[in-house]
C-alpha cells in the first residue's frame, strides 16, 4: 500500500492498481507512471482508455461520488480475471469535480499479446459503466444535478420496492 499526497491508492496487488484522486486526473503523469511500472515486465501490449469530460448540454463539468468498499471488491474480481489470462489492469478515477476537457477516468490493460488486452479493455470498461459504485452529477448553473437518465441500475435493483 502506497499513499502519496495527491491521491489515495485504494487497492494494490502485484502490479494492479486502483487509484482514486480528488479532482481531475493528471493523464500524462498517470500513463507515464503505469508505463514505467511495467516497462520491463515483458508485456507486449499496453492499452489505455482515457475518459474526458466533453462539452454538451451546457454543463460546466461533472462531479462524482464513489463507494469505495464495493468498488474495491469489484476491481479485485476483475484483477483475478485478468491474472488468469496473464494480464494486469490499472485504473484511476476522480472524486468530486472534474471540469470540461479534463479527465475523470483512465483504465489500462497490460498483457503479453495484444488480443487479450484489446478484449479486456472493452469488457472491463463496459462492466465498469454498469457495475462500479460511482455516481455522476452534472455541474450546471452552479448546481450539482444527479445524472439519473444516464445511469444504470445495478443487478438486483428494486428488491425493496415490492415486499409487503
Amino acid at each position, binding site marked *: 500500500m502506497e499513499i502519496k499526497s495527491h491521491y489515495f491508492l485504494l487497492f494494490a496487488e502485484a502490479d494492479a492498481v486502483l487509484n482514486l484522486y480528488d479532482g481531475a486526473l493528471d493523464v500524462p503523469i498517470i500513463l507515464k507512471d503505469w508505463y514505467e511500472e511495467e516497462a520491463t515486465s515483458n508485456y507486449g501490449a499496453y492499452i489505455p482508455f482515457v475518459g474526458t469530460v466533453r462539452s454538451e448540454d451546457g454543463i460546466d463539468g461533472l462531479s462524482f461520488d464513489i*463507494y469505495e468498499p464495493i468498488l474495491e*471488491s469489484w476491481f479485485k474480481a476483475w484483477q483475478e480475471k485478468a491474472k488468469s489470462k496473464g494480464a494486469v489492469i490499472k485504473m484511476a478515477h476522480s472524486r468530486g469535480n472534474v471540469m470540461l476537457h479534463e479527465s475523470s477516468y483512465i483504465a489500462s490493460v497490460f498483457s503479453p499479446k495484444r488480443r487479450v488486452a484489446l478484449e479486456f479493455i472493452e469488457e472491463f*470498461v463496459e462492466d465498469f459503466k454498469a457495475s*462500479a459504485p460511482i455516481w455522476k452529477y452534472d455541474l450546471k448553473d452552479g448546481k450539482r444535478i444527479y445524472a439519473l437518465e444516464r*445511469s444504470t441500475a*445495478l443487478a*438486483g*435493483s428494486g*428488491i*425493496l420496492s415490492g415486499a409487503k
Partner: protein
Amino acid sequence: MSKIIHDLTYLRYNSTNNKEGILMVRVEFLGPIQKEALELNINNLNELATVLQEDTELTQWLNNCAVAVNDTLVSSLEAPLKDGDKISLLPPVCGG
C-alpha cells in the same frame, strides 16, 4: 402511520440493546440519496422493505436501488441479518 412505524422501529444502537438480544443494523443511503443513515431493529430485509416503503423520502429510490449487506450485493430479501450488519442502498450508477 408512517411515523408510528418509524418510531417503533427506530432505536439507538447501544450496548444495552445488545445485552438484551435486540438485533440492530445500520442502513446507509449512498450517492445522490440525501438521507441520514438509520439504525433499525429488524431481523431481515423483508422487514427493512416494509419500513422503507413507509418513508416518503425514499419513494423515488426503492424501485431502482440495489442492496448490499456488509458491502456484498444481494439478490434476495430472505437472507437473515445479524447484529451489527451494515446495509447499503445503491442507486443507479454512472462512472467514467
